[in-house]
């Protein structure tokens, strides 16, 4: 239970980090919060020859809301994102989901971008990024690219980051003014990885009725599973949505697998129940926000 012998660099700037990654290439891992990587090292499930520790890249320690996106730098800890009031206003789903990410001591050290790069199918933040249609910005000594969520999560514990690249920030779209979000999961103990979890978002149209709904599931596939639920709920008033139909549709679109924690059938059952819970929360928030927008319009006129 000790990490293998490792080479180690601790660059002081992003450009230095990229130069090291370019030179070392394959067999090199980036160490940010290390809350997933260090146990993998200790259990010898990961045996990189070299670590590039980015904990001195303070320039990446930001969280800000800009141009319709929440920008989360690679060194922003979960706790920092969770406590940010501007983020809570701009995209409430982040705080809702982050509350389920392990425990305070882990959130104090673990980074949100690191969690995305780690791409654990049982983790909350990949499901959130996938639901919102966010992206991850990758930098290398050759330049930058922005990878949308649906291309970023390649498979279990596999993201689109190349050995020469550093994920510098994650981009989560701001919640539209007439939309709402919800998050629900079941885990065996508080803070554990979810047996099944779901993030949901609904958008209301000008008439105050549901115009679209979708959900993103964790722990039911090799990567976050985003399913469109609009067909089951479109045109319905938020107070009287047919949640059972939405849950049924989600169950039909998912193909969960069995493991030591749950059978496939049990996971499908949980997916249905949790879809209802997350949608109910999302509909409540969407309705509140829709009414608040209406009030602003009335006051202005």
């Amino acid at each position, binding site marked *: *239970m*000790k*990490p*293998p*012998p*490792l*080479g*180690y660099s*601790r660059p002081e700037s992003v450009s230095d980090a990229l130069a090291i990654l370019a030179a070392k290439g394959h*067999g090199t891992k980036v*160490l940010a919060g*290390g*809350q997933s990587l*260090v*146990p993998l*090292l*200790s*259990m010898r499930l990961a045996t990189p*020859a*070299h*670590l590039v*520790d980015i*904990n001195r890249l303070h320039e990446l320690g930001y969280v800000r809301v800009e141009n319709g996106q929440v920008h989360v730098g690679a060194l922003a800890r979960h*706790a920092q994102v969770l406590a940010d009031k501007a983020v809570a206003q701009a995209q409430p789903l982040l705080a809702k989901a982050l509350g389920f990410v*392990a*425990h*305070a*001591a*882990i959130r*104090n*050290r673990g980074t949100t971008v690191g969690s995305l790069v780690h791409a654990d199918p049982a983790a909350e933040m990949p499901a959130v990024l996938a639901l919102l249609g966010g992206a991850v910005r990758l930098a290398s000594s050759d330049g930058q690219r922005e990878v949308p969520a649906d291309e970023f999560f390649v498979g279990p514990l596999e993201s689109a980051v190349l050995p020469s690249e550093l994920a510098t920030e994650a981009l989560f779209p701001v919640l539209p003014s007439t939309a709402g979000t919800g998050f629900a999961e079941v885990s065996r103990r*508080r*803070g554990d990885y979810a047996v099944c979890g779901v993030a949901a978002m609904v958008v209301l149209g000008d008439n105050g009725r549901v115009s679209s709904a979708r959900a993103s599931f964790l722990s039911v596939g090799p990567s976050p599973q985003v399913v469109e639920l609009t067909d089951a709920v479109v045109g319905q008033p938020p107070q009287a949505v047919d949640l059972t139909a939405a849950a049924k549709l989600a169950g039909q679109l998912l193909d969960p697998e069995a493991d030591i924690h749950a059978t496939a059938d049990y996971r499908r059952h949980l997916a249905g129940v949790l879809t209802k819970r997350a949608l109910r929360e999302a509909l409540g928030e969407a309705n509140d926000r829709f009414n608040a927008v209406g009030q602003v319009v009335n006051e202005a006129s």
Partner: protein
Amino acid sequence: MTDATELHDATELHGATEVHDVRLTVNGAARTAAVPARRLLSDCIRHDLGLTGTHVGCEHGVCGACTILLDGVPVRSCLMLAVSADGQQITTVEGLADPDGTLSPVQQAFTECHGLQCGFCTPGFLTTITAGLRTTPDPDEAQAREIVGGNLCRCTGYQNIVASVLRAAEILNDRKAGRA
């Protein structure tokens, strides 16, 4: 298969046997250690610095026994490399009591409420609760449970630990009032 010589050469090549100097402020005192990159912070604290109050349970972040305060916030010392903590401040369980030996409010509460049995998990609980009461100085029972939610105890059934959190908050507030 790689033979031992080749493996040795490979680790040399990547600088894996390199020793790094780490400067830490531990419980208020400047300390240094020379460690390979692979050294966990928990092992550095116990073996290099000789502070064996920090206990190592699961060594993969689940049990919370090794929790220390890093620049004042609780983290798992088994989930950090010592070299990564260079330049930072650490508080271990040894640093909680006053220099004259007066128990900290959390330690006092554990004593009064029988918040420990075998004591293995206790250092992690003490550090976690110390930080938890800074952000939640007046917890109700649900908040007390939330504060200790990331720490495992296999003896107490948690009842007395939760009682200790609530009692620690009382002692803390009493001591503050006494000083004011």
